[in-house]
Structures are given as C-alpha cells and as structure tokens.
C-alpha cells in the first residue's frame, strides 16, 4: 500500500482513539469532583493541574487560559479548536485524514466519522458541554466506538487494517500510561503514599479505562498495587499496556511478514523487546523503579516505535536516497512528510 496512505490511516485512528480517551478522562474526573465535599479554587487547581500535566499540555493550557478551573479545563480539552489536541480538534484531524484517503474507506466508515465530526461542530455539542457534559462525552465515546466497530466489520484484514490497529494500540497504550501517571502529579499529603492518591483516584483511573467491571471480576480490592498490576500487566484487558503491545507487535509482524520473536526493522525490535520486558516483569519492578519513572520510560519507547514505523514504512530512507536524479524535489517530499508528522505529533511532547 502507498506509504502516504499507511501514514494517514495510522493517524486517523490515533486521532479518534485520542478523542475517545480524552472524553473518558474528562468525564470521569468531572464526576469524581462531585465526590469531594468542598473545593476552593486552590483545591480545584490541585485537582485539574495533574490531569493537564499528565497529558503534557501545561504549556499549551497556560498560553490560552489564566485560571485552571473546571470550566476552563473542560473547554480546553473538549471543544477548544485552538488546542490542537482537544477532542474537537482530534476529530476534525481524523476526519481530514479520512477525507484524503476516502477511496480506502468503506462508505459506512466515512459516514460515521463524518457525522461524529458534524456533531463536534454543532451547536448541540456546545450546548451539551455547558448543560449536560456526561451526555456530550457519551456521544463522543459512542461515536468513536461505532467508528471502530464499523471499521472492524467493514474492512478487509489487510495491510490497511494492520496500520489502523497499530495506530490504535499505540495510542491506547500511551493513554493508559497517562491515566496512571496522573497520580504522580497529585499533591503529596502527610498521609502515607498508598492512600494518597486514595481509593477515589484509583477508581477514577479504572473508570477512565472503562475497566471497573473487568477489574472487579479479577481482583476484589481497589489498591494502588492492584490497579497498576491490572492496567499494565493484564494479558486479557484490552486497554492494558501488555495487551496493547502484544497486539501491536503482532500487527507489525503481519505487515513485514517477519515471524514473531524475530525482527526485520527497528520498530519490530523495540516493540518485541518491550513486550518481552513486560512479559517478564512484575508490579514489584514497577514500584522499585518508581511508577512515574516507569511510565515515562514506556512513553519514550512508544514514541520511538512510532518514529521507527514512520522511518521504515513512510520515509523509506535507503530506497529514497538510491532513487532519482532530482535530489531537491525528493528532499522536499520527505520534508513535507516530516512536517506533517510533526504537525500530528506536535502536542505529544513528553512532560
């Protein structure tokens, strides 16, 4: 398949997945707020700041807003088109991705994404954010889920599908680490480390991942150890990091045709190594290293995998350099791609 198409499919799904995860995160935390008895503005700041930080968005937020109150944060992350990583921006970007490769998508799939986009642009959507936020986030989640469902039931399981899956797994794994990482930014209290962040926060993280039910049937008590174990190491839960990387590794090998357990390019090497590492690690290793440091390490590897996929399948550096006698123009095509890549990546800078 065309390199450009592979790249676009990958970003299309990452953008949808990102919007989906953001809507979960905001929705859950907004409801979590309701459990706190009284919050002055200082405590509100303490509540929202970690969320912005874990997403790596403090700088972008501060340039646009003075006050990290609930309504500002919600606007910033939901329908503020000045924020290229808001839900509305992600959906618009995904829809733009889809538009450029419409010939590759089923009509139903396009229609689904198009209508989700039209929703984010509607007055209904801005009205809901004000008056009934859970309904807004539900519509986004429903739209994203339908999109993925339609993709799963209308797309051939060919290379295009693998690139879609690669984008989805990578984005999903990344967001799970960011949900977990929120705890690292919570203000430390005098209480002991395990209770702060407390049960409420760990519950919120599970719910952000839609993992409550699955977690309960697996473990009984909500604890830091239990949640970290489940969301990083569960071999069965579809948003656990292990699950995502397992799928990612499988898709990468399907694309290249290389047997699993071996590698033919850097993305496969890093993904395989990471998978083996996760397979043979335990929660103890995580806490020994420190949760924040561990998650940070994972995010760096996810980024490296993404960059290597781009190098291998989109830029084809060795094949481009041996190609044509028009070096300038080739350089500019490559530069163009890199520019697009940076545009898509720009707000994924690491905290």
């Amino acid at each position, binding site marked *: 398949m065309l390199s*450009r198409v592979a790249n676009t499919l990958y970003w299309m799904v990452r953008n949808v997945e990102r919007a989906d995860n953001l809507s979960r995160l905001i929705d859950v935390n907004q409801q979590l707020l309701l459990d706190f008895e009284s919050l002055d503005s200082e405590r509100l700041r303490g509540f929202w700041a970690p969320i912005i930080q874990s997403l790596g968005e403090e700088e972008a937020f501060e340039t646009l807003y003075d006050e990290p109150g609930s309504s500002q944060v919600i606007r910033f992350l939901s329908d503020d088109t000045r924020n290229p990583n808001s839900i509305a921006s992600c959906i618009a970007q995904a829809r733009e991705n889809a*538009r450029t490769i419409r010939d590759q998508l089923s009509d139903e799939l396009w229609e689904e994404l198009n209508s989700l986009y039209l929703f984010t642009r509607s007055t209904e959507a801005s009205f809901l954010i004000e008056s009934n936020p859970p309904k807004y986030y539900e519509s986004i989640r429903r739209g994203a889920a339908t999109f993925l469902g339609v993709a799963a039931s209308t797309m051939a399981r060919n290379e295009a599908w693998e690139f879609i899956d690669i984008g989805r797994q990578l984005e999903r794994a990344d967001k799970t680490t960011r949900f977990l990482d929120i705890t690292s930014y919570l203000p430390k209290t005098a209480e002991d480390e395990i209770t702060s962040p407390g049960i409420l926060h760990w519950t919120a993280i599970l719910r952000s991942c839609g993992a409550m039910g699955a977690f309960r049937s697996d473990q009984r008590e909500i604890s830091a150890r239990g949640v970290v174990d489940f969301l990083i190491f569960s071999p069965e839960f579809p948003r656990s990091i292990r699950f995502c990387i397992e799928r990612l590794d499988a898709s990468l090998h399907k694309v290249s045709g290389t047997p699993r357990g071996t590698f033919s390019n850097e993305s496969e090497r890093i993904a395989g190594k990471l998978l083996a590492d996760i397979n043979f690690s335990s929660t103890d290793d995580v806490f020994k290293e420190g949760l924040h440091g561990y998650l940070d390490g994972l995010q760096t590897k996810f980024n490296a995998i993404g960059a290597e996929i781009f190098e291998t399948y989109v830029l084809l550096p060795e094949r481009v350099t041996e190609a044509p006698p028009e070096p300038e123009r080739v350089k500019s095509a490559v530069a163009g791609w890199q520019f697009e890549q940076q545009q898509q990546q720009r707000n994924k800078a690491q905290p």
Partner: protein
Amino acid sequence: MAIFEGYDPGGFHDEMFAGSGEVRPYCAPLLNKMDNLSEREFLDRKAASELYFVRQGITFNVYHDNRGMERIFPFDPVPRVIPANEWELLEAGLTQRIIALNLFLHDIYHDQQILKDGVIPRHYIENAKHYRPEFRGVDVPADIYIHICGSDMIKGKDGTYYVLEDNGRCPSGASYLLENRNALKRAFPDIFHTLGVRPVDSYPRDLLNMLHHISPRREADPVCVLLTPGCYNSAYFEHCYLAREMGIEIVEGKDLVVKDNFVYMRTTHGLVRVDVIYRRIDDDFIDPTVFRKDSVLGVPGLMNAYRAGHVALANAVGTGVADDKVTYYFVPRMIEYYLGQKPILPNVPTYLASEEADLKFILGHLPELVVKAANESGGYGMLMGPSATKEEIEVFREKIIADPRNYIAQPVVSLSRCPTWCDGAIEGRHIDLRPYIIYGDEVKIVPGGLTRVALTKGSLVVNSSQGGGSKDTWVLR
C-alpha cells in the same frame, strides 16, 4: 395538486413536451408516474436523494470555510430523457469526432500534414496556448492522445444537437453522472422498473480497460494509478470515487518518484513500478522540471519517463490544443480531411475574431453574440451579449481588439429546456449535456452523460461554478 399542472414550455424546445401540454410519447410513462405524486411525496423523495449526497459526502470543497462544511452539487430529481434514436446519432457523431481529433493531434505532433495542406492555418495551431512543440515527434501508446473526452452538447430550438466545445484535457463530472443515477434509483425506484433506462455503471470498467490498453508494459498486469493534485482540489471527490470504482491507487505527486526514466510509487514495501497514469492534473503542473517550476503537485522527471515510452498518460500531454476554441472551429474540417466523411454533429456557427471579415461582423454585432475566450472554461471569460450592459460590451470590445487570436463569437443558441423543480413548482430550465467518450481499443460512450441545468430562471449558463446543477440522464433502450 399534480406537480406538472400548469407547466409551460414557453416556446422553447422542451425535452419532455412537444407543444404546450403535449407530452413526447417516450416521456409519457415518466410523466404519468411523476405527476401522480403529491407535492409532499415528491419533496420527500427529493429530500431522500439529497440526503444520499450529503451522507456520501458527494460535495464540492468550499475553500476557507472554517466550519468545514462542503456544498453538495445541486441535483434536480426530474430526469432528462433521451430516446434511443437520438442517442444513436450522438454516439455515431461523437465517435467520429474523437477519432478525428486524435488523428489531428497525432498529425500536428508529427508530420503536420493538415497544416502543410493549408486546411488549418499554421499560425493558429503554433500560437495555441496549449500547443506543446517540445512533444513533436514523441510517440504515445497506441497513438491515442485524448482518451477521455467530455464534449459539451446542446440542443437548439429545432431540436438539433450541436457540439459546443470539446474537453480533451481532464474533463470532470463522470462521478456525478454515476452518483446521480444512484441517488435517483433511491428516490424513484418504482419509476425505474418500467421505462427501459440503460444502465451507466460500465463507466469505471470501460475506463480501466482503456488504461490497460495503453500500458507500455505488455508482459505483466499493468499498474495503473490516478494522479490527483490532492484533497483540496475541488474535484477530489471525483478522483477518489473513480479510483475506488476502478480499484486503482489514487496518488499525489509526492507518492511518485522517477528513477532511470521509470516511474515508481512509494509503498510500504518499497518502490512499485507504475505503467499508466490517469492524470487529473493539467500539463502545466505535471512536471516542474519541464513546465511550471513552482508546481509542487507534479512529479519531477515524469516527462522524461513519458518521452522514453516507459509510462502512459491519459490524457496525453499537449491535448489542450484541441480544447482551444479556435481549434474547435476547425473540427468539422478535420473530420472531412482525415475521415472523408461529413460531420454527423454540427458545431455551433462560430466566428473567429482573428479573421478580418469575422472580426468586423463580431464588433458590429456584439449585443447579439456570445463571446468566449479561446482557452477559458467553467463559464469564465465570457460575454453574453444580449444580457450584458453597455459597459461590459465595451470592455470586451477592447479585449477582442487587443488580442483577437484569443476570442471567438457565436450566436446565442437558445438551449433546450427540461422540466425542473424550482422551489415550489416545476418550471422549464435550460440544459446541456456532457457525454463521456472513452477511446481505448475501441470507442465507448456510456449511455447518458452529465446533464447540467441552469437553475437560475432564464439563465443559459449551466456551469456549476455559475450556479448550475445537474440531472440524471436517461437513455432509453
């Protein structure tokens, strides 16, 4: 109330009614069905077809609209019907025309016999804006230059078809022809069953067969691609649509590289050789090393690969000279010169401003004439004499005197009309017809074409850029 009640053909040639209230026999079943619908029912079905367009995103791009909304190409649900005998005539005439045009292009890019014999004055061709002297002597696959032609047809007051112009570069609109049919099938499935309407769905297959036919590589399955300027082009929907219907890749300039005079596309598994390019980019932008240096849409080195015969282009480079409205003037002569036949389809009478006698006539009759720039399309660069103001006429007079080579003039042809839904009632509106002619191992014309309709009352301008819409076109068995 029946929606056709009180319909008035208004003294024009009407596609559905022979005289006032007298339906043409082949339209009678259609009229019966439609007239039995209540207005409410009719509007419901119209809405159903429009919804189809919106949901499918069959839209024009509207630039700089930050709400990102796209516009649908206005679609009128009353079809235009062409009986079998009329279609036979069109088919024969258009086939004759595309064959002659291709012989002409081959000739002027090789021996130039027609110029040597003085049938067409040499200066007209060599001064044509889109003539490409650098391609003289270059052989193109199967000697075909115009592979896809969209010749615009109009019907005059007496019901005669005239050729208005030939679009031999990258004619667009075929996707609307196909989607109009899909939409109408949804809106009026019951009408369709009974009338014997010929299907149009062979178009993508014919197009692909033609691309295969011109492949320079015979030993392998040819790799065909559609080259688009990108998703911001107003016809991007069509590019995607046709590529998908043909099952070929749609590529942008940056997806292609030229290496040792072969063209390759960049894929996730390395470079793949490309044999045939259905290009939807004009000559000017296709190769920045040869044509416009500032173009970022094209493929550097493509022309070298093309000259070397390693890749085929549809349409070929240099066909724009056939779109020139001055060249158009000479097409009937080409038919006689190359084929020894009388032209089956007449041109609209045309005056060349660069011929002294014609110029005199044009300048003396500007308020009665339509003046057109030789190389504009989309309804731009036109003067509609009868509806123009004095100032507009004087502006054109100056332009014509300054550059007579660039202007032709024609008497106003009163285009035929077709009943059309106009915000509350069925009224007559002027139409034209763009059939799509494909020239591969044989000439194929999909039965029908894109009927464009001037939605503005009284207007003769059907271009979508000027407020036109379209209709489904039914060719009967």
